[in-house]
């Protein structure tokens, strides 16, 4: 390299410079809430393995205002994560071809949203019904 006196700009605070980067960081932040939820489910399984009293205590915690507040945040994070995941997923999969023609990204995105809505309805029916 030539000994040019070039200037390199710092990266500090790059994620605040552009709305796209803010959205990206929020997407990455959803991981903290989803990890908390995985921990919550694991706590439920542990309670279940310890018997009815432990499980009742777990259910009591779930009904507390603290838990409801936390789950509101987790729910927002889960929905935002799903939204970003479905929208970007065509970029991370090999092109899908039907009858020699590439399925448009839009079709892949929309069918995932539909699938997620279907899962939502089926799981609600399974939990509430019977």
């Amino acid at each position, binding site marked *: 390299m030539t000994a*040019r006196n*070039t200037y390199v*700009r710092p990266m500090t605070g790059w994620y605040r410079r552009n709305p*796209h980067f803010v959205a*990206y960081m929020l997407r990455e932040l959803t991981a903290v809430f989803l990890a908390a939820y995985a921990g919550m489910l694991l706590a439920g399984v542990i309670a279940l393995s310890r018997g009815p009293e432990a499980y009742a205590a777990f259910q009591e915690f779930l009904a507390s205002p603290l838990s409801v507040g936390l789950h509101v945040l987790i729910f927002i994070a889960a929905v935002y994560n799903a939204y970003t995941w479905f929208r*970007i997923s*065509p*970029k*991370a*999969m090999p092109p899908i071809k039907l009858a020699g023609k590439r399925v448009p990204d839009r079709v892949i995105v929309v069918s995932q949203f539909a699938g997620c809505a279907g899962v939502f309805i089926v799981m609600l029916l399974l939990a509430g019904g019977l």
Partner: protein
Amino acid sequence: MPDRREIDIEVMRYNPETDSEPHMQTFRVPFDEDTSVLMGLQYIKDHLDGSLTFRWSCRMAVCGSCGKMVNGVPKLSCKAFLRAYYPGKLRIEPLEHFPIVRDLAVDQTDFLEKLEAVKPWIIRKEEKPLSEGTYLQTPEEMADYQQFSSCINCLLCYSACPQYGLDNAFTGPAALSLLHRYNADSRDEGKSERMPLVNSEEGVWGCTLVGYCSEVCPKQVDPAAAVNRNKVNSTMDYFLRFLTPRGGVDS
């Protein structure tokens, strides 16, 4: 002339011989419906300050020379128009994540080395003699790589990529798109020569799918898709090498 307005253009200045860091300088530039950002800069150079340094060539979004940060967004300055920013003002900076040589001109050496490293040409195990004619390809085979061949090396995607900014060992969007363009070409037989780069930490694994590269690309190359499809390829290569005798790179 009914349509003759004026707009303030704030330009980043840096003189490597006298300055320790860049500063901003504002110029007032007349414009009309047809004045591109590049023409605004040319007006400054021709009429206000001849020392303003910037790159440009074709003026019609083909050569990829005139990329700048316009109000923080990487753009081809010939393809952006002053009218879109009026009555606000413009802040023009050199492309992000590259060292500034002078004013709006950046040092592209790092990208050029990366471009060469992906071997962006058709590799044949054995060249066919001319007498046997050209390498044929169906329209479907061409469709597999065509969008990735539209890259004009304008570097907007590198300026849109925080991962490249954070660690410029990352090969980056355009070079990986061109790598994919040749790997996906039915006439090419050089995939095994390019996979070691794809598989490396400096290859596709520096990417966290921010996705902004695809948004700023002026040629709809969709570099994020090229990079992330190669994460799938690299993952297959990683696990399949245990199953195939040649280490999987040709799979």
